[in-house]
């Protein structure tokens, strides 16, 4: 028989695998979904990242994000493309920022606030990386206001979705979670 601790570990592993799968599917679907401007994305996969952070903590969040970007890029055929590095850097930076928000401020912010910080970090990291790696022209920063304005909308939306999803999942998983609502 498995010990209680080992059982817990296995349960977590299964849940993380499922969450990673959801994230990969959302990520890949979003990549093929047409967008009016190529660099505007809704970042729906961020919902899964945030839910993972809330329920399982920072390490799990980073795990899911990295897996998502790696496998997602293999599915969409963008592995090691410039876009892949933008996704990776933005994803890791926003996951770190959101994880820190949760551990530092605990219950001051709802998932909406945390998601907003994630969206901002994600977009600012990406634009900086795009400047360093691809465009190398300062004019790229002309996009900053547009991207930040868009981040407020998507961040709020993703935050509401994460809040609903994490509440729902908490009931199903029945685990002691890291952060509260």
């Amino acid at each position: 028989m498995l010990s209680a601790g080992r059982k817990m570990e296995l349960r977590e592993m299964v849940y993380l695998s499922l969450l990673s799968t959801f994230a990969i599917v959302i990520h890949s679907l979003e990549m093929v979904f047409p967008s009016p401007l190529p660099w505007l994305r809704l970042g729906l996969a961020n919902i899964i990242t945030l839910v993972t952070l809330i329920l399982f903590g920072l390490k799990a969040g980073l795990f899911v994000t990295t897996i998502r970007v790696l496998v997602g890029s293999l599915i969409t055929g963008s592995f090691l493309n410039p876009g892949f590095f933008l996704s990776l850097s933005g994803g890791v930076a926003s996951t770190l920022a959101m994880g820190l928000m949760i551990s530092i401020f605990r219950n001051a912010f709802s998932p909406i606030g945390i998601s907003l910080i994630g969206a901002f970090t994600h977009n600012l990291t990406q634009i900086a990386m795009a400047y360093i790696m691809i465009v190398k022209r300062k004019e790229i920063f002309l996009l900053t206001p547009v991207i930040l304005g868009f981040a407020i909308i998507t961040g709020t939306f993703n935050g509401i979705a994460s809040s609903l999803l994490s509440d729902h999942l908490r009931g199903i998983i029945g685990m002691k979670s890291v952060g509260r609502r």
Partner: protein
Amino acid sequence: MTFWDKVLILLLSGITVLSFYVVKTIFPQGAEASIDVEGRTIGSYSLEEDRILKIKGPLGITEIEIRDSKVRVIKDPSRYKICINQGWISKSGEALICLPNRIIVSITGEGRYDAISW
């Protein structure tokens, strides 16, 4: 949504609006109106400064107006007034062509991409 969420939304909205102004001051629209007479460029004028230019061509004087970062021809000695009917131009690569008077006003400047994709 908690109280601090609302504070954060206000703060981030503020940053967004601020970034708009910062970007606008750091990157002025660098476009210029370049004027050619009989195939030779006689000068470039910033679109940021409103003014009326009187340019002499083989047929007479062509008047060019620069206002609100746009350019148009307001007077031209040609018969069909094609370059006047073209109206305002403002984007890099556009041109007003007053062929009879051999005057071409074209907009030059950087910072315009046809497309960015990744």
